[in-house]
């Protein structure tokens, strides 16, 4: 019961009703090249705004390996405790499991920030971890001109997820799919991409 209450406190009620949940997995698996779905307005608005404010206040540390990536990670994640409680709850794992017809036992949470000059690169020798990844997007006032899109390369055309505040981009990383974040250019000014990457096993 506690977990159901927690879900109700955080998640848009639209995604808690059976009718919506039943529509998610057919849509997700319909994309054969890259099973994926984008759930807009995923959290209740006040919760998404709250997380964004916390992310803005965090102290971020640069993670830079020039030929692989440049992005920022929180120096201290304690202030994100309430979001972590939700994502680690059995209710959240169960909700996503029901949506995608899978069973999730463990999750890894990685808050990421991309600012001007940041990027990730595809790498021949680096194999991306397979499985379901959910990118929770807390980026605001974004323009396509800033780049910084989340791009998945597949055997066919690349699939591009634009930055949308309070969207959950859920993808199944397969052998043929690799993901990168396009270089964030100087037009961005002081704006930043905020993503919380949730890898589910």
């Amino acid at each position, binding site marked *: 019961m506690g977990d159901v209450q927690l879900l109700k406190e955080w998640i848009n009620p639209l995604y808690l009703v059976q009718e919506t949940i039943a529509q998610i997995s057919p849509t997700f698996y319909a994309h054969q090249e890259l099973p994926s779905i984008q759930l807009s307005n995923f959290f209740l608005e006040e919760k998404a705004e709250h997380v964004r404010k916390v992310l803005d206040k965090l102290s971020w540390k640069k993670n830079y*390996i*020039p*030929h692989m990536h440049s992005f920022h990670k929180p120096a201290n994640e304690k202030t994100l405790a309430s979001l972590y409680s939700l994502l680690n709850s059995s209710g959240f794992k169960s909700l996503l499991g029901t949506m995608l017809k899978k069973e999730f036992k463990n999750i890894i949470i990685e808050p990421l920030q991309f600012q001007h*000059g940041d*990027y*990730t*690169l*595809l790498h021949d020798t680096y194999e991306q971890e397979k499985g379901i990844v959910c990118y929770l997007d807390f980026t605001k006032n974004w323009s396509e001109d800033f*780049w910084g899109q989340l*791009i998945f390369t597949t055997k066919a055309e690349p699939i591009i997820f634009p930055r949308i505040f309070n969207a959950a981009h859920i993808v199944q990383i397969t052998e043929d799919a690799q993901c*990168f974040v*396009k*270089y964030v*250019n*100087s*037009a961005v000014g002081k704006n930043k991409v905020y993503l919380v990457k949730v890898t589910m096993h």
Partner: protein
Amino acid sequence: MSYTTKHKYPKTPKLSMKPNPRIGALKGWMQEQHLSDIAIKKYTKEFQNNKPIQHLLIKNFLQPKQVEFLLKALEKQEFETKDSDLFSLQQTKDLRNSTTFVFSSFYTMLSSNYLQKMLQEITGIPKLKNTVDLAGSSFPKHGHLLPHDDYLDNRKIAFILYLGPTLTPKEGGALEFFSVDEENIPQKIIKSYPPQQNSFMMFKVSRQSFHQVSELLTDKKRMTLGGWFHG
């Protein structure tokens, strides 16, 4: 009117009878001051000693008229927009077999035995082939090329000829070299070269040759011809 005074003409300097073995196909292209023994010795020393990787920048490389011809021809070329995780830029097709006279003539100079010999002297890399890759690039505003080493196939020497306007460091578009650790992982930028019109950059391609082109921050285009000498 007649001239009765004896006019003393200055003595004509004696012409050296020893031909410069480097001139050949390079005549009409490169500025002659780069072809003397003294210049080659200087460039050899610079190339070998430059850090973090062996490289050399030759300023005022070509005769100014040739830069003008190449730039005009390049501006008329069809460019394809290239976008990936690693870069955003515009590039021409391979210019090796271009029917544009100035490109085919430039390619003949690049692939000539004269230039190969000169490069071998400077770099110490033996057995360069006459195979040269050549393409034109144009960086629009925000164009960039992120860190990579160029290491592939038989590439021995990478080169870039800057044709576009000279840019200040604040305008971006600089070629930047990284230091590497003992496992050849790039660490930090050690050298940065903003584009300078009519300068020729060359560097040795290896597992250590990590470099990037920083984001172009101006509306001025960064126009270059570049490629690799193979071995």
